[in-house]
């Protein structure tokens, strides 16, 4: 009996020791950045993936090394940030997503020598709330985006397409109702209304009045359950929406699914119906049916932050901004242009196709739905099939936002959102039987 016991113990010990005995390679001192994802993890095709892309860009341009830490559960946030901070080579730790706000505030206080960046976070305001004496933490920066402006641009694009194709609606599929998404919602609706005003002035033949049910929208309460994106989008397309805006990460695949179904049954090679991508350039997912993407350049945030740390500007910047940096349309940081919001263009596409090609090379498996040239030509054909005045109008809005001629409303608080819903869409929502009465056009 003793020998059996001994054997079992020996087995465990042997396995453990085999690990310990492995040689340690003394890595040369390097400038490392660590990117810690939220539970959405890598592969959401938008938010987290963009952050990692930013890290890769920084690797390429600044010669830094990126380490990735993917969080599987919420309990991983603090240990992951800590793990990264304890690596002596790591100088910048990026936490991706507002879910990491609490963890960033806590860990940044414990490692005053390391620099921390949160994407979409509100860590500094948590510091202010809980540890007022330390506010603002000199080593912590929240990077936020002007999503409302980008949403306004795609809202306008959608409304203009609706005018062109004589469709009664555009749609928006949202994730969990968190304040960040209010920015998207209000911006999107506002942009659509701006477009109706533009049409009245410039293309009276296509003009229509903005109705409060023009934008079909719904919060699905999830950022992961694809079938809900499908169900939501399907209902919207059934009501003849010309385009549906994806503000729910992977649920875009569900939207795509709904579009695909229509395309197949009607043998379409190109929209309408369209959908609108978010965060990353998602035009390549289904070329010909993704009219454009509202790009929230999380990658730029990571990229800039790395540069600021490398150039020694980081803490100075934190001091001057109280630790909150906004990237948006026409924004400038420390005298330099640092934008983070735009509508996807044909040129952006290359960058993202390159990502796919790289993944294909790495794995030897198919990642892209078609060859890069095919994708590119399909997207190009689709874009060119839309009238020029549509694109011109969007460009005009962008210019006006840039120059400050118009102000896109920003909804941050509940009163904000209620007021704007009252104006642009439904406050308290009536039963859909009434809401979706056949539009009189």
């Amino acid at each position, binding site marked *: *009996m*003793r*020998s*059996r*016991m001994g*054997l*079992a*113990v020996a*087995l*465990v010990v042997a*396995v*453990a020791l*085999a*690990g*310990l*005995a*492995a040689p340690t390679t003394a890595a040369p001192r390097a400038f490392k950045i660590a990117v810690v994802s939220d*539970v959405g993890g890598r592969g959401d095709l938008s938010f987290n993936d963009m952050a990692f892309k930013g890290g890769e860009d920084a690797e390429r341009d600044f010669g830094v090394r990126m*380490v990735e*830490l*993917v969080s*599987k*559960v*919420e*309990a*991983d*946030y*603090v*240990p*992951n940030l*800590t*793990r*990264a901070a*304890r*690596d002596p080579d790591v100088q910048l730790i990026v936490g991706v997503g*507002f*879910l990491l706000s*609490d*963890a960033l*505030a*806590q860990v940044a206080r*414990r490692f005053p020598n390391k620099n921390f960046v949160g994407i979409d976070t509100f860590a500094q305001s948590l510091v202010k709330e809980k540890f007022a004496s330390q506010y603002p933490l000199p080593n912590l920066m929240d990077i936020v985006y002007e999503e409302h402006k980008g949403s306004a641009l795609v809202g306008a694009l959608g409304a203009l397409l609706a005018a062109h194709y004589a469709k009664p609606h555009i749609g928006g599929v949202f994730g*969990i*109702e*968190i*304040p960040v998404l209010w920015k998207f919602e209000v911006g999107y609706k506002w942009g659509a209304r701006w477009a109706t005003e533009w049409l009245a002035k410039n293309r009276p033949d296509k003009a229509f009045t903005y109705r409060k049910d023009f934008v079909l929208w719904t919060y699905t*309460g999830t950022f992961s359950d694809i079938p809900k994106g499908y169900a939501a989008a399907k209902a919207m397309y059934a009501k003849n929406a010309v385009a549906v805006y994806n503000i729910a990460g992977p649920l875009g695949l569900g939207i795509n699914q709904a579009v695909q179904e229509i395309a197949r049954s009607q043998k379409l090679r190109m929209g309408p119906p369209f959908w609108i991508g978010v965060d990353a350039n998602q035009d390549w997912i289904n070329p010909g049916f993704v009219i454009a993407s509202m790009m929230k350049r999380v990658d730029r945030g990571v990229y800039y932050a790395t540069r600021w740390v490398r150039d020694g500007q980081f803490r100075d910047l934190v001091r001057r901004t109280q630790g909150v940096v906004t990237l948006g349309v026409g924004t400038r940081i420390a005298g330099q242009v640092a934008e983070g919001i735009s509508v996807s263009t044909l040129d952006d596409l290359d960058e993202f196709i390159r990502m796919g090609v790289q993944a294909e090379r790495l794995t030897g498996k198919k990642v892209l739905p078609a060859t890069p040239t095919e994708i590119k030509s399909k997207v190009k054909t689709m874009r060119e099939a839309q009238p020029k005045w549509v694109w011109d109008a969007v460009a005009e809005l962008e210019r006006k936002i840039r120059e400050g001629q118009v102000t896109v409303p920003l909804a941050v*608080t*509940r009163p904000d959102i209620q007021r704007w819903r009252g104006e642009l869409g439904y406050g308290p929502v009536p039963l859909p039987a009434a809401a979706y009465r056949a539009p009189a056009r």
Partner: protein
Amino acid sequence: MRTSRALRPLAESLATVALGLVAGAVLIWAFGHPPGAAYRALVLGAFGTWEDLLETLAFATPLMLTALTFAVGVRGGLFNIGAEGQMYLGAVGATFVAGMVPMPAWVHLAAATLAGMAAGAVWALIPAALKAWRGAHEVISTIMCNWIALHLSMYLAINLLAEPGRAERTVPALPTARYPVLSEDSTLTAVVFVAVGFALLVYAYLWGTRAGYELRLAGENPDAARYAGVRPQRVVVLTFVIGGLAAGLAGASQVIGRPPAWSLYATLGNVTTLGFDGIGVALVGRNHPIGGILGAVLFGALAQGGRLMEYEVGVLSELVRALNGIIVFAMAVPELWSLIRRRFLRP
């Protein structure tokens, strides 16, 4: 003779874990990573420094409790795989009291803890009642209850416990209802003592009291239990309630005993799968409360150590979960060890 009888299960558990590690090594190797370096990082990441050790214990805390749920079930003759759902409700109960009912400092902490435990126990009463009075098989009813609990808890988290402006999580526990953090270097709080204490209490109860004796008797031999005047219904309810208390405490521990959020995520992300992992922990711990504590430390170490493995060697820490599965799978095969004994260990 006596010692060897006691040590044999331990040896088998360790051997199973070793088997799991070997299988994991094969997987790591098959996907192009060096297994030696990976396991070195795994061990160092779990026990390498004081902080790592504390973090390991933080991950182990809820597991020793959900393991207790399963273990007590088996001791009472039941397959209670409902720790998952009972834990959700426990987290909801604790959040409610901790976040929305102000109280004086220590009272609040105790009340929130007890509320979590009570909620877990109440939820466990559903399968208990179905088993005791309708004879419904507890595997099916606990699975169903788990999923009902998932949706119910998400609903409650989003509607009843919502904090304005923070839709991703519920209201946080008020500072009066938080377990003191043991070290700023980790997320370990004093709740670990409560967990260990509860496990020891259950151990003392099962082996040191008349009611515990009757519970184990009913699990070992239901007919003999009836012969000894034990009411099967009572034991079923008692077993489920103890399991529910443990699972409820596990849920509570993740809200009022785990910084920095001190709240329940709307997706229940900070409690999900802890209940299922508890089954593996219980099995490795041979359905014994003390064994469960050890098993929990082991699984906690895998969870914490996987981080360094991923960080340094690039082996996805998801593999650790796959490892857990292999271990559970291997533990399910009683013949495995008699087979191995006969084939390879025969003197």
